[in-house]
């Protein structure tokens, strides 16, 4: 059924190199995703000011003081009914703490997972989506707001969420690209003197990254995608590769970077390790020391402050 589904989508696809990706991925669907050992059962760190746990793909649980932020939550085993998970989520659903701000970067199935939002509904305090994206958010019991670029919303009295521009796509189904042309964003979250940048999914645009740095000031942590990389001539319009992610990190002038958006789903023509190998080469090329780029295993948590 999954392969039939992929074939139908391939046939409906209009501008992507889907047949090549289909040939590569349709027959590599794993029986079951790889298990994550040693998953944390209580990810809240009372001793930490700034901590991040990579759940997988673009899902990161960020702790800023006493506040918890969750990015693009995906806890399901298949996104868009088509793309299977190759590694289990790095945090079990029942161990997700109360979330003060949940950030959705755009409408693609690997970022806006409605099933995951349903499962997390009771734990989410406030959900943020890009401008024009409310149409794809079913009615919820918690607060939901859409933010246009540079628009801010303060949760409580001290957790400030700002939408920042990135370069990506806002559609969900393909045909809706004709009108869903602005429903993608990055975010900056500020709390207790700390600033975290979440890039979601983005192509490289030096001007946008530098504008964000100028507007928001020093960034403590940047969550930046490093894949999918291949096929590059198709992906580069919407996705940074590892080298561009490092350049974005330098443009943002962030203290730390955590690479995301790789090694979790069958994605483009990338291998699970490809983006990470490319990242290490890019770091060496740009002279970025390892202590600034914190490569996490899925399920691993790092305390940065």
């Amino acid at each position, binding site marked *: 059924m999954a392969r039939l*589904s992929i074939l*139908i*989508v391939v046939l*409906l696809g*209009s501008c992507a190199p889907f047949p090549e990706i289909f040939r590569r991925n349709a027959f590599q669907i794993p029986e079951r995703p790889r298990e994550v050992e040693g998953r944390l059962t209580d990810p809240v760190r009372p001793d930490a000011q700034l901590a991040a746990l990579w759940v997988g793909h673009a899902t990161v649980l960020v702790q800023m003081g006493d506040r918890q932020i969750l990015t693009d939550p995906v806890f399901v085993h298949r996104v868009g*009914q088509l793309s299977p998970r190759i590694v289990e989520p790095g945090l079990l659903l029942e161990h997700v703490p109360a979330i003060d701000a949940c950030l959705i970067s755009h409408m693609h199935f690997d970022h806006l997972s*409605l*099933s995951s939002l349903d499962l997390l509904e009771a734990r989410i305090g406030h959900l943020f989506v890009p401008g*024009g994206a*409310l*149409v*794809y*958010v*079913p*009615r919820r019991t918690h607060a*939901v707001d859409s933010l246009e670029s540079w628009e801010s919303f303060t949760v409580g009295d001290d957790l400030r969420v700002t939408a920042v521009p990135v370069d990506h796509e806002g559609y*969900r*189904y393909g*045909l*809706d690209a*004709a*009108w*869903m042309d602005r429903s993608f964003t990055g975010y900056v979250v500020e709390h207790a003197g700390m600033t975290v940048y979440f890039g979601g999914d983005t192509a490289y645009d030096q001007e946008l990254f530098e504008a964000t740095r100028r507007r928001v000031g020093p960034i403590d942590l940047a969550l930046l995608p490093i894949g999918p990389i291949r096929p590059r001539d198709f992906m580069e319009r919407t996705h940074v590769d590892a080298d561009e992610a490092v350049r974005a990190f330098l443009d943002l002038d962030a203290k730390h970077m955590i690479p995301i958006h790789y090694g979790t789903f069958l994605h483009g023509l990338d291998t699970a390790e490809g983006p990470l190998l490319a990242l290490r080469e890019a770091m060496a090329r740009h002279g970025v020391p390892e202590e600034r780029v914190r490569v996490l295993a899925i399920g691993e948590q790092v305390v940065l402050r």
Partner: protein
Amino acid sequence: MRLSSWSLVLTLAWLAAPAPAEAQRELSPVRPTGVWAGFQLLPAADLVIDEGRLRGGLHWQVTPVLYSWSRDRRVSPWRFLVAEPMVRHDGSLELVAVPGIVLGDRPSASFRALTRATFSLAEHGERASLSLGAGYGRFLRRDVAVVEAGLYVLFGIVGVRAAWMPRPGALRTFALSFQLRYF
């Protein structure tokens, strides 16, 4: 027949009712495009069973207006012609015009007008949904009532629908349809 007429009248009255005063709704940017129109030309295939006789058929679908009850209150629940998969399959009521052709010894044009409600079964209708509809039409050169039920998967793109189209003195007219409908 009378029931379906009443449902049509009630639906039109509901559609004409003003939106709640508290809602400052965004106008929907959804609009027909050339690509959308191209997909709408793709017919659904029918297997018609009329009083024991088997025929083939084709039909198309047009949605003049759709009301979705599942969207955020700040978003317009109305759609005209074009409806996103989630907007339709997560819970909606729509008017549907169904022109078609019944093949066989003497091919004939058909037309049905329906009120159709669609309900999510899984993942806000993106994974699976169910529709129930009722209406009135002209089928096999005769006036018929129409009662139908459908099941859809894969963002509503793939669907099967069964319709019962009784008419006075002939209650055994059915159509089983297979559709690929994208938006």
